[in-house]
């Protein structure tokens, strides 16, 4: 049997050249392992989930009605063909705040069977504790991503998250946690949108159905007969379920219209009542306002009169004081004049008196002389008389004495006269003096009178000046008190007026909403939803499908490289064995028989490599990938499903590919005649390469560079193998490392470039305008707060092509400040987008999901229940979540209502204060939740880390690929050029020079391949990003310069590593080889 000889020759060949065999083996193993592994992941993922669904009896269909379901509806559903069981139930979203974080819980009802351990639909898996048995007990989700801060035994307080409380919904708002559960209904941590809280369900909890007070069921869970036996991701399953859905939808149309009329009538009546009530309170309000206004103006008038009186009194007082002052001035003048006059008179009098005194002295002495004379004369006369009377006297004597007497009498007479004259002179002198004296006295009297008058006047003025101000102050105070009182009552009146107006507006808005609600009732619908409408189910399925898409991408590439590696290896092998091929031919073996040796060599390599590859691949890759996805899902450990067809097919395809390739390699030689084959093959002729024609460039190359160029262009197959393989390595690296670039950057983009605020506060839904002002005031006074912007932020639902999409609708109340908080801009051109007066600006990913561009219309609802058509006026750069931005004008146009502040954006100057500010707001009861953007970016950074496994897997694959390809290339190069290398060693090349001579070529190829790989990597990265992107996140396709550099660097490193590994072999080549004859 020639075949047996050939096969044993082939097997011996393997022993002889293990490196060659291993390179084919390895590349097939890598390719097949990756293909089977990645391709096998999606089925394993789906199988695992399906097992989980079946075990916990996940419903097949969920029926919702806009008006709820009544027992008649349930009975009707039960009677539909194909329905195995129906389980009516309730659900409602509530919020609870733990520390400063608000969580939205979806509360599901548990049927009675839950407390007795029976079977029912959508059973949760109990993680710890027990199921609720008594009233007021609940089980909550065991979620490893959210640290709730509540555990078994704690009591949680839930609230509606809306202005109405929960008293009509749930029996109590205090639930005791008795256990923790997970549910197949919630595989993802990303949840359905909610119209309360942050706009998304965070966690779920379950309570007994008796806890719900709804008059109607909110949902009905349906299982389909025979569906559990099928894989829920299979076509058979969806066909079976679809048939039942069709029947249920028909039923829904019948049932829903029956219930509409009565409900609508009820609602309209209630609305009319509400309207009447509003009208009454409006009239009442107007009356009260008018009364208050009148009272207030009376008080105002009185106050004005009092003020006028006081003013006139004050004026009088001023006048009186002025009069006094004038009088005092006049009096002072006259007093001072009188004083002058008096002084003059006095001095005149004094001088006169002194003159008189001297005259009077003289006169007195004269008089006293005269008196003496008179007295002497008188005594002489007397004596003479006596003499005369003396008879004895002679005549003569008598005559003599007579004569003497006469003379004396004359003298006396003269003296008397002189004395009389002196006396009259004396009195003449003294009379004017006494006149002057009396005049002087008079002047003094007058002066005194004037002085007295002045003093009196002064006293009067001072008395007035002292008493008046106190009187005035008292009057002022009285007036001020009156004013304050007036202002207080005016403020009170204004507040009352505003409150009343606010209440009225609220009432009006409520009416409008109710009208909207009634309008929304216009088309009652049953929603018959299959599992694909369960968010987590759909998300999980699409993840698995994306894995499949990637699975198609990589292995094709790996197989291409495997084929190239095989081709070059086999070509070299055939070349080496020309002589033995010739010998076989000469011995009479047929071409087919000879080819069999080489084909079987490749077949053995690929069957073994493929088998080892798939065996390892199917164990390793699904698990790695599943585990890294499992971080994003709540799943039981992976269960493997048998995938023999995939494994066998992979090995068969790999083997066929490689045997075909090796046949192609050997075919040429088979056509040659033995004689040609026995002769050494003419060495592949050197020839002038294209590059040499560019003389200028060629001359610049050093001698050894020329040699390298010639070699590279001489072996084109190897050139392509190496470039493709190395490019693949670099591309994988770019794609892998680029993952964290793109994903990691969105946080800095979103929370650094686009959102410029640090804290987002959702105000309590019941907050009053005054409380809101208080919050603003409190924040404005806080030194750590840089600025605050009031927003209307609503949880909106946008109609998507398949499902509804949750978005946040934001209307800033101050449009001038808005750009400081959120930058709207085009991602490509970076041009800012202004909020339009009409229409909305939506985020890029939302536009992409909806497939709309500027000018198109989207359908959205923002809490009112009514879907409105909105015109897209702009599309803005955004990475996380969906937003719809609109101006106040646009909001008013669309909703007929003024936007009200429901949230605040806060910029901080001191970021460390955020927790304090948040806790204060929560503690005050005015904020429902506080969202710290720094937390969000930290959390996202954690998620990015979970990608590391995948990145490592890609880097390792890349390394293996580069290693195998470069090893193969170098190995072929060495074995083919042994003589050449030995010769240059004999020529005296040093080890380093020999290595450079050989390696320059493979390193250059590595470099070229690396550069090409960077380009391919960009494409690969885009493809991967597009396939792993999630609904509400836009990753973009950013790859950093560092990634390109390190990808190229790592690729070159692999090149150098292979060179190092081969270095020993290179150096070990014996120079004696150069002496051997050509084979």
């Amino acid at each position, binding site marked *: 049997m020639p075949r047996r000889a050939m096969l044993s020759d082939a097997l011996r060949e393997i022993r002889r050249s293990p490196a060659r065999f291993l390179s084919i083996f390895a590349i097939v193993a890598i390719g097949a392992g990756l293909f089977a592994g990645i391709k096998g992941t999606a089925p394993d993922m789906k199988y695992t989930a399906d097992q989980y669904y079946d075990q916990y009896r996940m419903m097949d269909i969920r029926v919702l009605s806009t008006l709820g379901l009544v027992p008649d509806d349930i009975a009707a559903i039960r009677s539909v063909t194909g329905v195995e069981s129906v389980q009516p139930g309730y659900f409602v979203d509530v919020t609870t705040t733990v520390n400063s974080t608000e969580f939205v819980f979806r509360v599901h009802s548990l049927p009675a069977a839950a407390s007795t351990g029976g079977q029912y639909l959508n059973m949760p898996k109990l993680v710890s504790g027990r199921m609720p048995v008594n009233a007021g007990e609940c089980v909550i989700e065991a979620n490893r991503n959210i640290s709730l801060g509540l555990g078994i035994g704690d009591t949680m307080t839930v609230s509606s998250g809306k202005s109405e409380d929960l008293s009509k919904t749930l029996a109590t708002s205090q639930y005791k946690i008795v256990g923790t559960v997970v549910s197949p209904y919630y595989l993802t941590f990303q949840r359905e949108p909610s119209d309360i809280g942050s706009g998304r369900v965070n966690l779920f909890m379950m309570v007994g159905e008796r806890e719900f007070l709804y008059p109607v069921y909110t949902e009905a869970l349906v299982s389909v007969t025979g569906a559990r036996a099928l894989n829920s991701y299979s076509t058979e399953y969806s066909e079976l379920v679809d048939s039942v859905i069709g029947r249920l939808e028909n039923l829904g149309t019948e049932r829903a219209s029956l219930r509409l009329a009565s409900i609508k009538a009820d609602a309209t009546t209630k609305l009319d009542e509400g309207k009447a009530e509003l009208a009454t309170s409006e009239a009442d309000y107007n009356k009260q306002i008018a009364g208050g206004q009148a009272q207030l103006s009376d008080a105002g008038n009185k106050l004005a009169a009092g003020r006028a009186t006081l003013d006139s009194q004050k004026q009088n007082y001023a006048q009186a004081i002025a009069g006094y002052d004038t009088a005092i001035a006049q009096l002072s003048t006259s007093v001072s004049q009188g004083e002058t006059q008096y002084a003059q008179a006095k001095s005149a009098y004094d001088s006169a008196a002194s003159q008189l005194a001297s005259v009077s002295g003289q006169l007195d002495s004269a008089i006293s002389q005269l008196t003496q004379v008179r007295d002497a004369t008188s005594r002489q006369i007397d004596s003479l008389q006596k003499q005369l009377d003396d008879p004895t006297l002679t005549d003569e004597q008598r005559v003599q004495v007579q004569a003497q007497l006469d003379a004396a009498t004359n003298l006396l007479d003269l003296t008397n006269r002189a004395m009389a004259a002196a006396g009259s002179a004396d009195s003449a002198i003294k009379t004017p003096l006494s006149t002057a004296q009396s005049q002087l006295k008079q002047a003094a009297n007058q002066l005194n009178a004037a002085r007295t008058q002045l003093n009196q006047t002064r006293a009067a003025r001072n008395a007035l000046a002292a008493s008046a101000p106190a009187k005035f102050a008292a009057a002022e105070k009285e007036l001020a008190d009156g004013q304050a009182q007036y202002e207080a009552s005016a403020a009170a009146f204004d507040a009352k007026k505003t409150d009343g107006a606010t209440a009225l507006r609220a009432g009006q808005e409520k009416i409008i909403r109710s009208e909207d609600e009634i309008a929304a009732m216009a088309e009652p619908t049953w929603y018959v939803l299959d599992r694909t409408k369960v968010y987590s189910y759909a998300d999980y399925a699409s993840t698995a499908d994306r894995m499949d898409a990637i699975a198609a991408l990589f292995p094709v590439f790996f197989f291409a490289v495997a084929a190239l590696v095989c081709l070059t290896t086999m070509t070299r092998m055939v070349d080496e064995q020309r002589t033995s091929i010739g010998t076989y031919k000469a011995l009479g073996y047929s071409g087919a028989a000879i080819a069999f040796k080489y084909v079987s060599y490749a077949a053995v390599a690929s069957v073994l490599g493929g088998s080892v590859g798939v065996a390892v691949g199917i164990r390793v890759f699904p698990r790695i990938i599943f585990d890294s996805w499992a971080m994003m899902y709540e799943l039981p450990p992976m269960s493997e499903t048998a995938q023999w067809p995939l494994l066998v097919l992979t090995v068969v395809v790999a083997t066929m590919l490689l045997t075909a390739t090796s046949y192609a390699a050997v075919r040429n030689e088979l056509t040659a005649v033995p004689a040609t084959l026995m002769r050494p093959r*003419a*060495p*592949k*002729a*050197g*020839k002038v390469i294209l590059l040499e024609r560019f003389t200028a460039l060629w001359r610049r190359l050093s*001698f050894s560079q*020329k*040699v390298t160029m*010639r*070699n590279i262009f*001489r072996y084109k197959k190897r050139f392509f193998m190496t470039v493709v393989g190395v490019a693949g390595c670099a591309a994988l690296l770019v794609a892998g490392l680029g993952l964290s670039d793109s994903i990691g950057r969105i946080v800095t983009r979103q929370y650094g470039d686009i959102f410029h605020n640090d804290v987002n506060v959702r105000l309590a839904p019941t907050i009053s305008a005054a409380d809101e002002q208080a919050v603003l005031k409190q924040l404005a006074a806080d030194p750590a707060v840089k600025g605050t912007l009031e927003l209307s932020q609503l949880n909106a639902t946008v109609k998507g092509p398949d499902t509804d999409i949750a978005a946040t609708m934001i209307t800033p109340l101050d449009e001038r400040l808005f750009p400081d908080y959120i930058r709207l801009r085009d991602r490509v051109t970076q041009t800012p987008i202004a909020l339009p007066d009409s229409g909305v600006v939506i985020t890029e990913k939302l536009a992409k999901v909806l497939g709309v561009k500027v000018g198109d219309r989207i359908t959205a609802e923002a809490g009112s229940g009514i879907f409105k058509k909105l015109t897209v006026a702009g599309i803005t750069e955004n990475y996380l979540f969906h937003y719809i931005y609109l101006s106040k004008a646009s909001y008013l146009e669309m909703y007929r209502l003024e936007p009200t502040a429901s949230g605040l954006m806060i910029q901080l100057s001191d970021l460390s204060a955020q927790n304090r500010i948040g806790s204060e707001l929560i503690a005050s009861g005015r904020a429902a939740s506080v969202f710290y953007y720094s937390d969000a970016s930290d959390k996202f950074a954690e998620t990015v880390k979970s990608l590391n496994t995948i990145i490592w897997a890609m880097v390792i694959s890349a390394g293996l690929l580069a290693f195998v390809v470069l090893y193969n290339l170098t190995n072929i190069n060495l074995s083919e050029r042994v*003589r*050449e290398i030995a*010769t*240059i*060693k*004999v*020529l*005296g*090349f*040093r*080890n380093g*020079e020999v290595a450079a001579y050989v390696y320059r070529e493979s390193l250059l190829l590595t470099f070229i391949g690396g550069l090409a790989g960077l380009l391919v990597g960009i494409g690969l990265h885009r493809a991967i990003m597009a396939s792993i992107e999630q609904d509400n996140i836009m990753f973009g396709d950013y790859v950093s310069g560092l990634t390109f550099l390190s990808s190229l660097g790592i690729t070159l490193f692999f090149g150098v590593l292979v060179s190092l590994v081969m270095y020993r072999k290179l150096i070990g080549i014996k*120079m*004696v080889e*150069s*002496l051997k*004859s*050509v084979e």
Partner: protein
Amino acid sequence: MSQYVEFAGVKKVYRMGEQDIEALAGVDFGIDKGQFVIIAGASGAGKSTLLNILGGMDAASSGTIQLDGAELSSFSKRQMVDYRRYDVGFVFQFYNLIPNLTARENVELASQVGRDPLPIDEVMLSVGLAERVRNFPSQLSGGEQQRVAIARALAKNPKLLLCDEPTGALDYNTGRSILKLLQETCRVRGITVVVITHNIALMPMGDKVIKLKSGLIEEIVNNPSPVGVDDLEW
């Protein structure tokens, strides 16, 4: 005794499985500078081993080898490389040209590592290949290829030119012309040439003929008047 090349008690032992094989069993000889030496012997006589050792491609197991005053047998690996690089030119039986390089480039390959290389064009002219410098080996005849190989060995300006069966792969006439070239090289340039051959007919052309047999020297013949190639027939 201070000859240019001197072998003293040179032995080379290979270990083949369980037993040792003596390729050279103690060889003593000397060569003067500028001599044209023929080393002859049958297959397995130890010619190649001798050549390997003399060419610095292999080390002797024992004994000393002197070359121009240096002791080759005590050279380190590095010194061996330098020795091959600067002092020895090697001409192979199968030319061993690099197929991917032109004639001129093959010569350049050697001259670029030399310490004092000869001008390439001059060398090419001297081997009579000035016209064919731009041709690749595959475009040259065997004789032309061997001329390129000789040019490559000469371009380094070596002290010693070793030729391993230089005519072995050539036809008679071409072989003669190559031998003539080698002889002329020796005479004109004064380079010591050692030619290894199994062809006894060539012996008269050497200044000295060393005959080997079973790893030992059978005979050393000094030939004061060597014959020109043109006068030889075989």
